[in-house]
């Protein structure tokens, strides 16, 4: 790969695709999809290539590129990947490639839809590969903003209207509508970015106002008082995106209202971006702050796991079930990170990947079901397994991974995280974690039984529904394949991840 700016190719290929779509493919829907698949396919191929050629012995940041942008302020376009970001780049590439197929049926203004989606992905790739905190922040904003239009224009409003004593107030504020969800999501995430910006500026000034580079800040020794509050700022800022309780409420609303590909990308990748930010910036730069606040991060993660699972059990809207299960699973990610053990941190990163694929699969399936049956209400639908065996099978495999069945990616991730929790300074964290896995099996199996495997619904509206067709199969096949592959041979992911987590733990003073 010597000499090739391969990370820039991955990052900017979707952006070029977006520009091409806007300028060449007006009123030609097939060309729009062709460009989208080609540009994300290129990114996926490049991501697979760097995944294969990443030097697992050398570790550290590889495929490094640097271009000075604003020399007086020390802003550089500086990209590189280590084992952790490598896996995240691969995840993003898989999800967006599958997502381009999953949204094949978008009809209204599909040109703008695909263009915005590809711009969004550029932002996500950019955050994962940036080593300059300032550029990272810019990419973060690119990843957040198109979401407003994507949900606001192409989203769907929930069919279940709020009831009960809060029903009136909720109807007044438009809870459950796509406009409400779009605004809520955007404001929450921008609120988080305000904290991130303050944190980055504080580190920049404390480091002598000369560089935003992660590599240089890693060498600096920040005073403990500064570390303490900057860590909290990063934790709140990125944590909102990772869905930490009690700042998670944007996530169910947003994910339930978003169109299929956006839900896939947002729940599958963007929430990981939050967790990645906490681990990379918070833990990677602020070792004292991490030691000081690990108890808080872990405890809130436990709340996330149990609270998210309980909320998912109470939902009657299929998309909300999946959205709350994301909140629960992101708790596992944060819990693994907070354990500050090698197993826990590996489990955390692995869970980011596993949950990304799993949730991407779930949202793709929910989108398909909604498109065929025009319903998201769990208790109206029944017995779809006979009519759409492919979708039913994929849902069941995803569900089994979600509840942590061995031989799926979800098992490896949860096992490692819980093992880490038991080895950490707070072994009791294990119990809420395992309780969450138990509750997950309840709500997943309940949904699978009701919608797919139970007796058929008497409603004639739900008879004779088609299975997935054409490009939709591509999306499902890719995701199910990854889920099983990484469950059976987790070593292909854990190898590179270990090269990133061990140096991090050495820096934190946990390992020697």
């Amino acid at each position, binding site marked *: 790969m010597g000499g090739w700016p391969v990370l820039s190719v991955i990052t900017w290929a979707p952006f070029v695709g977006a520009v091409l779509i806007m300028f060449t493919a007006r009123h030609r829907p097939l060309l729009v999809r062709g460009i989208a698949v080609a540009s994300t396919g290129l990114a996926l191929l490049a991501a697979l290539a760097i995944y294969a050629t990443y030097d697992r012995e050398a570790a550290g940041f590889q495929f490094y590129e640097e271009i000075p942008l604003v020399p007086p302020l020390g802003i550089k376009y500086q990209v590189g990947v280590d084992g952790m970001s490598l896996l995240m780049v691969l995840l993003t590439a898989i999800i967006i490639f599958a997502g381009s197929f999953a949204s094949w049926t978008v009809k209204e203004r599909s040109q703008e839809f695909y263009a915005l989606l590809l711009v969004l992905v550029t932002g996500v790739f950019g955050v994962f590969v940036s080593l300059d905190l300032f550029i990272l922040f*810019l990419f973060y*904003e690119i990843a957040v903003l198109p979401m407003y*239009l994507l949900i606001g224009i192409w989203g769907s409003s929930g069919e279940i209207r709020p009831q009960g004593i809060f029903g009136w107030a909720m109807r007044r504020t438009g809870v459950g509508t796509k406009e409400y969800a779009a605004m809520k999501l*955007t*404001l929450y995430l921008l609120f988080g970015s*305000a904290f991130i910006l*303050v944190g980055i*500026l504080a580190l920049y000034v404390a480091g002598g*106002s000369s560089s935003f580079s992660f590599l240089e800040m890693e060498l600096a020794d920040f005073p403990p008082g500064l570390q303490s509050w900057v860590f909290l700022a990063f934790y709140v800022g990125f944590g909102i995106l990772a869905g930490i309780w009690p700042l998670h409420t944007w996530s169910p609303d947003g994910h339930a209202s978003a169109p299929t590909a956006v839900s896939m990308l947002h729940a599958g990748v963007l929430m990981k971006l939050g967790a990645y930010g906490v681990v990379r910036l918070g833990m990677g730069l602020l070792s004292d702050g991490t030691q000081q606040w690990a108890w808080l991060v872990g405890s809130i993660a436990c709340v996330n796991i149990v609270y998210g699972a309980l909320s998912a059990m109470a939902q009657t809207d299929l998309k909300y079930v999946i959205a709350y299960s994301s909140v629960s699973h992101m708790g596992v990610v944060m819990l693994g990170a907070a354990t500050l053990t090698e197993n826990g941190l590996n489990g955390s990163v692995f869970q980011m990947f596993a949950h990304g694929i799993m949730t991407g699969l779930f949202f793709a399936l929910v989108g398909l079901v909604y498109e065929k049956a025009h319903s998201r209400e769990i208790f109206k639908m029944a017995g779809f397994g006979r009519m759409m065996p492919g979708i039913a099978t994929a849902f069941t495999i995803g569900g089994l991974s979600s509840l942590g069945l061995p031989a799926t990616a979800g098992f490896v991730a949860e096992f490692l995280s819980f093992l880490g929790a038991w080895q950490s300074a707070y072994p009791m964290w294990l119990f809420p974690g395992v309780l969450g896995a138990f509750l997950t099996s309840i709500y997943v199996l309940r949904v699978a039984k009701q919608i797919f495997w139970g007796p058929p619904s008497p409603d004639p509206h739900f008879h004779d529904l088609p299975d997935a067709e054409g490009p939709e199969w591509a999306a499902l096949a890719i995701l199910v394949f990854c889920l099983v592959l990484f469950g059976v041979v987790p070593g292909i992911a854990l190898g590179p991840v270990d090269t990133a987590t061990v140096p991090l733990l050495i820096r934190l003073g946990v390992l020697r």
Partner: protein
Amino acid sequence: MLEAGLGVLMIVIFFVGVWSRGEDRRRVGVIGAAGLVVLFGVAWRSEPGVALFGGSFVQDELAIFAKRLFLLATVIGVAGSLGLRAPTFARRATEYYLAILASLLGMLVLASARDLVLLFVAFELMSIPLYYLAGFLKRDEMAVEAALKFFLVGTVSSAVLVYGFSFLYGIAGTTDLRGIAAALQGGHPLMGLGMILALGGLGFKIAAFPFHMWVPDTYEAASTPFVAWLSVAPKAAGFIVIFRLYLEGVGDRAILWVPLAAGLATVTIIAGNLMAIPQQNVKRLLAYSGIAHIGYMLVGFAAVSADGVAMMLFYLVAYLFGNMGAFLVVEAVAQSEGSDSIAAYRGLAQRSPVLALSMLLFLLSLGGIPFVAGFWAKLYVFWAAAEQGLYWLVLVGAVLTVVALFYYLLVAKRMYIDAPEKSAPVVVTPFLTLSIFLCVVGVVGMGLYPKPLVMAALRAAAPLF
């Protein structure tokens, strides 16, 4: 000399206006705009020069930067005004443009003034035509009310300002600002009182909370291109006075102003943003959001450093393009729809995609989103404040940016998400198109390549410390 050139231009306009026949005197506006472009070119090439009148009139880097800014704002404002359609503007065009230029003359002198008396005279020369212009539609009750409110508040603030100046003169024994800066080192309590009173008076001019109440009414009633200019140029002039009075030559004692400026910035940001939320009229919304922007600029003042001043100057330019552009789009929509309400923007993206995209860019710039000017502006003032250790102020500012984005996005939602009620595109007059285009170029250009302007702002701010 710019001021002399402007004087000549005013005389030319006056005689052309007097000798024109017929009801339509809009050609004087064209002459005015052309003359301003020439003057802007002269300002672009002017170099720092000697001080005149015993040092009370200086031509330093700050003065030149400020003059370029005033001229640029006036060029855009006048070009935007050329598209005004009401017959009053055609018949009384001479008065309209003369008043704008008179006010501009006040600003130009103000930028160079380093003497209390000259400062105050220039200030009044700037302000009085503004009162007149606010009430230009004299048969419109709302305009008269707005002009009266503006006038009363403005004169009271001038009185407060002069009252403050009297203390300064009384203690320092001189009207020269260098002498006052030197006297401030003595730490006399009445000196502090004078400075605080003057800041109150200036607070009215820049419309900082709690001195802001004239803003929404005046903006709503006055003609929109004038408001676009009013929302930028006089505010910038107010800030130049603040620099001269509070920072130039004051040295370490400037640290005195940190709590004052930071407090003023905090309340202004919070109040402006919160009051903008319920607005249904775009002009009122922009008025309140403008108040919030003044708060963000005060963050740069609170940093009391050369960086802070420079970043504030940068912010002013970003605000010039973003805010004037937004107001000019409002004018374009109002001419076509006859309404300033947010509801008039329904489905604009499908009716006039280019106009809607321009508005979106302006709103994103005002909201501080990357790749348009406003982002760098906010980032730079925050950076200046962070250097001073004011992290809490940065946090307040950054969090309130989210509130601002909420109401900007409400407008964006109308334009992009809602379906249009009719399909005919909005008709925009050529002059208005031109001035909106200038603003778009400014917003995007500064967003993509901010470096030259940052360097210019840093050069302008350097002699103050």
